[in-house]
């Protein structure tokens, strides 16, 4: 039987330089008994977890596991059928009522999507996209906006020429960097990474993962990484929950979940990862 106690990852990371400021804040994201039904299909069933300030958590699963639905509920793109979501102490289980509310939520949790080719407005240059996001959350004079935009572009490793470019002139990795800069413009406490490196070449993926680690060091943002790639999960997160068909089947520190999986599905997942010397075996025939 899956362990039904909510994995509590609360507690700020005491090794982070921001720990003093964070110590009194408690978990930045708390999800309780989350459930989502699409008609008769139960996509997410009784999921609970908490993410501490400066910590990073992975939601691992394959297609149909419900991990993307959870991500969408956290950022407000889907409405939970039951259960609660709280970010930075404020409840966000129901859709925002006012524009001010929407913006406030945007300043708490942001998201970077998987596909770099459709997550930017094709008609907007990189700096315009970041600048628009910035002006949504801050009422600053033009020059302060400009300098902050430059800072963000710099933070994600793009140069001035790339900043002025339209998405079609940028590579997949560069576009993801723009998406990250845009998400950071709101200065969120939580950044949801929905398979954000899955569509990138291996060498670029490594660069972006390093970038994410750099950002985390500098801003103490918490990551919620949605991924099917166990190696990436290991690299970037300290806690993980494993989802299968809408339910949490296992949770715990990432290292433990990957090195000593308890649940049969987690074991199967772990055993499916190619490595030198790996010989795939057939689980059995499929008739559905």
């Amino acid at each position: 039987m899956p362990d039904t106690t909510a994995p509590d990852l609360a507690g700020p990371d005491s090794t982070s330089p921001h720990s003093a400021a964070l110590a009194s804040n408690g978990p930045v994201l708390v999800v309780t008994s989350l459930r989502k039904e699409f008609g008769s299909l139960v996509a997410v069933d009784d999921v609970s977890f908490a993410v501490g300030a400066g910590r990073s958590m992975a939601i691992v699963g394959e297609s149909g596991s419900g991990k993307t639905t959870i991500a969408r509920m956290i950022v407000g793109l889907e409405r939970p059928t039951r259960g609660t979501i709280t970010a930075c102490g404020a409840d966000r289980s129901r859709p925002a009522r006012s524009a001010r509310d929407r913006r406030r939520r945007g300043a708490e949790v942001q998201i970077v999507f998987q596909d770099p080719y459709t997550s930017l407005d094709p008609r907007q240059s990189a700096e315009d996209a970041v600048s628009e996001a910035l002006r949504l959350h801050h009422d600053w004079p033009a020059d302060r906006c400009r300098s902050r935009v430059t800072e963000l572009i710099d933070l994600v490793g793009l140069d001035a020429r790339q900043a002025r470019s339209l998405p079609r002139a940028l590579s997949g990795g560069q576009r993801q960097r723009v998406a990250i800069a845009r998400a950071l413009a709101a200065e969120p406490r939580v950044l949801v990474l929905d398979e954000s490196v899955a569509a990138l070449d291996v060498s670029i993926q490594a660069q972006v993962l390093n970038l994410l680690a750099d950002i985390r060091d500098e801003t103490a943002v918490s990551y919620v990484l949605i991924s099917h790639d166990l190696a990436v999960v290991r690299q970037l997160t300290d806690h993980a929950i494993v989802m299968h068909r809408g339910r949490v089947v296992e949770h715990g520190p990432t290292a433990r979940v990957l090195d000593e999986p308890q649940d049969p599905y987690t074991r199967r997942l772990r055993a499916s990862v190619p490595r030198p010397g790996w010989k795939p075996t057939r689980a059995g025939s499929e008739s559905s």
Partner: protein
Amino acid sequence: MLGVLRSTGIAGMVSAVVIAVATVFAAFGPTIAPYNPDLPSLGLAFVGPAGGHLLGFDFEGRDVLSRLIAGAQSSMLGPLAVVVGAMALGTVIAVVAAWRQRLTDTVVSSGLDILFAFPGILLAVLAAAVFGAGLTAAAVALAIAYMPYVARVLRGAALKERGQPYVAALEVQGSSASRICLRHIVPNMLPLIVAQATIMFGWAMVDLAAISFLGLGVQPPAPNWGVMISENEPGILQGYPLPALAAGLCIVAVVIAFNVLGERLFLQAQVQQAQAVRR
């Protein structure tokens, strides 16, 4: 924009030239016409080309060429009003339906289906019966009749943009629905909107000319190509086809130009959409 025009090929560019000429006439027609388009001279009725009158005289002895040039104004303004009206209404309805989806979309789609049942000209005749003949009533009626076509085409494109992750990212940012629609969704539909408007101009011109021909649109003696066909029609049987034919040709030339350019722009818009999907 010049780049877009150039990529429509020779046919597209020639069409653009024709449209440009017609537009110039529409804007300055009455002032650049060589002779007074409204001065009748019954003794010269249906006289062929002579002296400086390249196209001869119409049934009331007015210079045909001057009348064509002056007539460009009402012949082009009418369709312009129809296009602007239909596009504005259609775009708003399409984007709202695509944004809100579910119930709103269903209601809107059903409403559009009902409107589809009314042919443009029929609606214009009805409007003339209720409000009296005239360009305004005809233009409004046509705009309403065309709007569903616009909405149907644009709704598909709007739905596609609505489903893109960049729109979701803007929502998560906290941007409002109207801002996202106006600043992001509509601009990304622009090539399609322009293409649709261009083709629609041609349709509107034909329909309005027909309505004016029937006497329900622009009223004589105002110069208008459709009206000119109807007023000079007796000339065809009497062996003086030039005035009516010349007016007809003007309509045909401009309509073809709009159709050709519109179709090419449409193709371009589709190519752009396809390219946006490819890596």
